[in-house]
């Protein structure tokens, strides 16, 4: 089962290495890892997608929290979260197929960000399932390259209206 774990860490050299090294040393199965600065320049946020049962994920959470440079760890299991993945995808787009592809892009609420003679680059943002589905839909045209950020997530508060 996939779990989303969010860790607030100190924005210092070596912090990512501490976390990544710990995952490898303890044989945790990491699906994705996204890191970026927060509004506070001394802190970064790591969002980790872990595969494992509850016991494994609890260990991941505790072992992460144990790292000196990790400030706070949250497991989003059972919470209503907004989870997003950003993908750049270059797909072969010959002139005769271009309109078809553009329709697909529109259907997925995606965006064409670069066009050249033989291909287009598309930016897709959304939950993982949408990203996977877009990749599948593009396969028939020939995918040239895919880059993904990995999932980032934030819990909704109970008072927030779902949009």
């Amino acid at each position, binding site marked *: 089962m996939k779990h989303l774990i969010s860790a607030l860490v100190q924005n210092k050299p070596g912090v990512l290495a501490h976390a990544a090294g710990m995952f490898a040393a303890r044989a945790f199965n990491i699906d994705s890892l996204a890191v970026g600065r927060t509004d506070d320049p001394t802190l970064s946020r790591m969002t980790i997608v872990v595969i494992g049962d509850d016991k494994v994920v609890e260990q991941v959470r505790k072992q992460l929290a144990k790292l000196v*440079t990790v400030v706070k760890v949250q497991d989003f299991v059972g919470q209503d979260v907004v989870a997003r993945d950003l993908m750049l995808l270059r797909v072969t787009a010959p002139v005769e197929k271009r309109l078809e592809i553009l329709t697909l892009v529109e259907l997925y609420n995606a965006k064409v960000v670069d066009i050249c003679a033989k291909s287009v680059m598309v930016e897709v943002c959304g939950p993982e399932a949408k990203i996977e589905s877009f990749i599948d839909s593009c396969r028939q045209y020939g995918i040239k390259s895919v880059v993904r950020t990995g999932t980032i997530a934030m819990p909704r508060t109970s008072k927030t209206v779902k949009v």
Partner: protein
Amino acid sequence: MSNKSPSSGTPAPEGTRKQGSQIIVDTLAEQGVDVMFGYLGGVVLPLFDKIYDSPIKFIIPRHEQGGCHMADAYARASGKPGVIIATSGPGATNLVTGLATAMMDSVPIVAITGQVRTDLIGNDAFQEADTTGITRPVTKHNVIIKDIKDLQKTIREAFYIATSGRPGPVLIDIPVDMQIAETEVVPPSKIKLPGYKVRTKGHARQIAVAAEAINASSKPVVYAGGGIIISNASNELRAFAEKAHLPVTTTFLGLGAFDQSKPESLDMLGMHGSAYANYAVQESDLLIAIGSRFEDRVTGKLKTFAPHAKIIHIDIDPASISKNVHVDIPVVGDAKTILTDLIEAVEYRQRDEWFALIAKWKKNHPFNYDRKADIVKPQYVIEELCRLTKGEAIITTGVGQHQMWSAQFYKYNHPRQFISSGGLGTMGFGLPAAIGAQVAMPDATVVDIDGDSSFNMTLTELSTAVQYELPIKIVLINNGYMGMVRQWQELFYGHRYSCSSLQNPDFAVLAEAFGAKGISVDKKENVTSALEEMLAAKGPCLVDFHVEREENVWPMVAAGKSLHEMDGLDIFESMA
């Protein structure tokens, strides 16, 4: 070593500028360091130039690994952090085994390594190694100093991190230019580490629930680990067991936490633990784990471990809780603090039936060996050593059969009396550990009970003992084998002794060559007199006991077996 200037260590007035190397030495003194271990090298020369004028005592090992084990044992014996200094590259990589040993057994060490100049880092410079990268998994925390302004603060933080919470080694990698550069001296201030929280006080409600379970239990067992010793909670453990009337077994690293001469003591549990401890755990209805971590050598087959017991787990490391076994009542915090609270909440219960059963197991299945044999039995040597030292010596060991016999046949009554590599199982630990312990406890009788194979790995440190006139004693249980692997090859690989026998030097002659005293014993009737001569020796002394070559450690819970499925009990019975 010169001890010229008493000035270092005294706080400098604010605004004073000093070189990094001087700041290191001053901050170590400020942290209460009075002895350190280490080895020279190119990029730590600026630091050693300041050590030349420092009042801090310095012990130079013959190999950085030995130095790290010395700092480790110094910490285990004294309760104070050990300090080890090494140069970059090979100096730092030689620390890895020592740091991993300390990490596994939660020993506070501050390691300082030199590094090549910051502008050379990453260039494969001479004696460059990615020290923080290499040591990351074997330290509690590590840092490389890239800005001289961080140096003093980082050293203070290192001591705090190493000694607080679940202790462990912390390494600071200091490029040589950071040792030479000058910066302003900063006074100590409150340590702020936003990601590092230590919880010492146990949750009141969890303690109440635990006390309730203890008061209701008719077959409880306390399973106490090294955490008791680290937390200096031996007195509290004893008071707790007395007040609630509980039998106590300890882990290997917990030996000494509880008085083994008490009827409530079940001695050590686990793979080579006592039959009575293992039976008691398997029969118990409540297991009270304190400062222990359900390691595989303790639990045997996890699925059938303590099958009838509810489990209370008291530990300072939240990550240790429910890692290996499901815990019913977790209490996170410091053992000493929690036990103090728990003592208040527990009641005395007679538990006659339970103690009668335990007494029966103790009577029927004591640790034993063939006492009538004419040949020198390793267990006999250790029993005699225990008798002659009145059970009061500090014992260090290597790893293997002799280590298990040292745990079984020497009886420990005091914490910090038994110093051995439990988690990592580091062969070669015994001799440098004895040196570190003797440095910490100059007046104690310190005996390294070692195996020939373990001893071979670090015996060069004999010259360190001789140089610093440290009167350590070495009881060598010499069977000419890597005894424990030979035992496994006998039991599980059809007596095929693949690569497990050694050709040894004459260890007594070797000891003499180093300037120590050397005695060789191959007859049973000479064991006692040789031990007496050894204990009476003023300086370091080694006795090479040529023991029964194929003696086995019993009882034994084979890999994959449940704790009560011990081999070798029939052998005990045939000897009774």
